[in-house]
């Protein structure tokens, strides 16, 4: 067991953090293992895009299975574990009391990750489902739903048992994410997997699920982290806080309606696509308010935590604007069904979600362990690899997609010619992905070192005393 910080440490780190230490570190640790695994698989995938024979010696390592394993490991391994850890911590801290039902969190985490492991092995064996963000084989899905519930209970109890009647934006987003994922996940399981709808409707539902899991689950988890950490580190209140609730409700009402943007140019009724395009435009209001609210992340001085989160906020808002622009049929005729959509996906999940989570993890882990991170060089190295890797990946995929889209619209250009035109950009994307993988390996190694050195020593970190910390208006 890890040493508890001594009572002398100050009030900044309390029993709330100490009691949640093991379950939350387990969530963060599992998240990082999945992140590194998915990074390695993504690298294999990207190499296969320009060198198709690479590693494809057996069916397990062929492009389709690797892609399905990679996506599942990223979404349900990294994003879910990390997002839940941060959401539970934020809810406990703002709720003002220690997390309850932590045994359920431990059981839930164990079963979630075991089921996911079973699912990824299942995909390797050829049992994958054919829906975006829902490649995991049908036999692990119900167990994952139950495991998620077991983890989420602690968050719900922290919310209902909070000490203050008044609530804060970070809590809204965390609670919304906790409740909305089971709804999306169970509905998708029933109508896509166990009692599947047929024909066009199936594709429309799959699009609704992919988009909903982003706008109503992963995005709120990231926003919960950002709305908590930005004022917490900056010491100033959220700017233009009056509008935060408008931004929140816009996301909740409009978010899932944008699902049809995946079918622009596809064979679905016109209104599905039109409503999605309009929803993408309405959602701009949400992105503008998030940008206004979280602008404190850009005046963080030398804070690396705020640099991570600031990058994530920029990527999030930029991604929202790109979604709205590419939802126009005139633009989508080039970008749709190309690497450009993959660039948008990476901008959202890597640029926005992962970067905000990294910032939150760098802030949270010392408070859980009661000790500082072992090395400042590793933190900075991770920041720069993530920064360059994310920009390189998104920009090169976007350019590749644009070229590919223009070529595909000309019947005279052969597939071989298109592959040759985009090759150099795919090579760049591969290099960027390698950089991302390196950075994430550094973070995993750093976390292991932090935990091991924590076992060895009990010198508490020098947290600033809580009494001196008053939030000032911004």
């Amino acid at each position, binding site marked *: 067991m890890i040493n508890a910080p001594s009572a002398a440490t100050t*009030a*900044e780190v309390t029993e709330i953090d100490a009691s949640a230490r093991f379950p939350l570190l387990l969530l963060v640790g599992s998240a990082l293992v999945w992140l590194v695994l998915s990074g390695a698989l993504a690298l294999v995938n990207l190499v296969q895009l320009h060198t198709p024979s690479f590693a494809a010696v057996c069916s397990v390592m062929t492009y389709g299975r690797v892609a399905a394993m990679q996506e599942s490991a990223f979404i349900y391994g990294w994003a879910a574990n990390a997002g839940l850890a941060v959401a539970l911590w934020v809810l406990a*801290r*703002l709720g*003002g009391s220690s997390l309850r039902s932590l045994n359920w969190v431990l059981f839930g985490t164990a079963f979630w990750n075991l089921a996911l492991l079973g699912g990824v092995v299942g995909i390797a064996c050829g049992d994958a489902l054919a829906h975006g963000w829902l490649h995991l084989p049908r036999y692990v899905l119900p167990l994952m739903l139950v495991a998620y519930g077991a983890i989420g209970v602690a968050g719900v109890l922290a919310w209902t048992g909070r000490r*203050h009647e*008044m609530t*804060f934006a970070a809590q809204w987003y965390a609670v919304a994410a906790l409740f909305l994922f089971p709804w999306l996940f169970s509905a998708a399981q029933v109508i896509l997997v166990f009692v599947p709808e*047929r*024909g066009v409707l*199936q594709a429309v539902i799959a699009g609704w699920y992919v988009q909903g899991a982003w706008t109503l689950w992963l995005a709120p988890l990231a926003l919960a982290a950002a709305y908590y950490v930005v*004022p*917490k*580190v*900056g*010491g*100033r*209140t959220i700017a233009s*806080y*009056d*509008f935060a609730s*408008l931004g929140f409700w816009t996301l909740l009402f409009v978010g899932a309606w944008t699902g049809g943007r995946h079918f622009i140019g*596809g*064979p679905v*009724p*016109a*209104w599905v696509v*039109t*409503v999605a*395009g*309009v929803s993408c*435009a*309405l959602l701009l*209001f949400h992105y*503008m*308010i998030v940008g*206004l609210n979280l602008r404190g992340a850009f005046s963080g*001085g030398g*804070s*690396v*935590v705020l640099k991570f989160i600031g990058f994530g906020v920029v990527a999030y808002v930029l991604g929202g604007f790109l979604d709205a622009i590419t939802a126009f*049929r005139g633009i989508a005729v080039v970008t749709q069904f190309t690497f450009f959509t993959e660039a948008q996906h990476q901008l959202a999940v890597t640029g926005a979600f992962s970067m905000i989570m990294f910032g939150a993890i*760098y*802030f949270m882990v*010392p408070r859980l362990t009661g000790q*500082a*991170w072992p*090395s*400042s060089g590793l*933190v900075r190295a991770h920041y720069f690899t993530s920064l360059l890797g994310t920009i390189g990946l998104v920009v090169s995929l976007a350019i590749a997609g644009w070229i590919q889209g223009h070529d595909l619209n000309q*019947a005279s250009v052969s*597939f071989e010619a298109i592959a040759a035109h985009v090759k150099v950009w795919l090579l760049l994307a591969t290099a960027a992905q390698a950089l991302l993988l390196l950075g994430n390996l550094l973070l995993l190694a750093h976390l292991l070192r932090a935990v091991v050195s924590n076992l060895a020593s009990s010198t508490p970190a020098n*947290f*600033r005393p*809580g009494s001196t*910390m*008053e*939030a*000032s*208006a911004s």
Partner: protein
Amino acid sequence: MSDQNPIDPRLEQAGASDESLLAAHEKLLGKKPEDGAHYKMLPLVLLFVFSGLIFYAGTYLNHFAGHYDATIFNENAHPSTGAAPGAKIDPMVLGKKNYDQVCTTCHQATGLGVAGNYPPLAGSEWVNGSEERVIRIVLYGLKGRVTVKGTEFNAAAMPAFGKVAGSGYNWTDERIAAVLTYVRASFGNTSPAISADKVAEIHGKEGDRKEWSQEELLKIP
């Protein structure tokens, strides 16, 4: 540790306690504007932006939502100019639209297919030959070996397009007739049109079945 020190990434200090964070934001929401003549631009700007977005959304929906009709796939089908129910539709137009949305993925916009993978439609003996066979292929799909224009394709995987069990498309007999008519009169092909009645007749005769193989098809005249 003093505030003048550069921030240590190993241990970033909090600038506000959780209590003060909640209290400060609670105060922000409870605050009534007291500063009389001094009024803020931001709420007005956001109000205009949001109204603008809603106005745009309403207009766009009105023009391009195709009456929220599940059978309208073209967003430009304006209610007043769109095809009225029961109106005669040119099979060549309907056929081209469906071809461009779906068939073109494999058989390409040129109808030439992809050498080694997808058989060509242009000049194909299957397309221009027996109506009986080509209707069955589109209705139920074709699986396995197939020889087109003297070239053998090893693993054809043409899916079923008709309203039959296991079809992901569920096209009506009329649509299938339109696509066939279009394909038989395009890419240099000059074979006669296929009627929806003929498709319906074969559909009725065969009922539900799995994909055809080349051998089975060749037995049919």
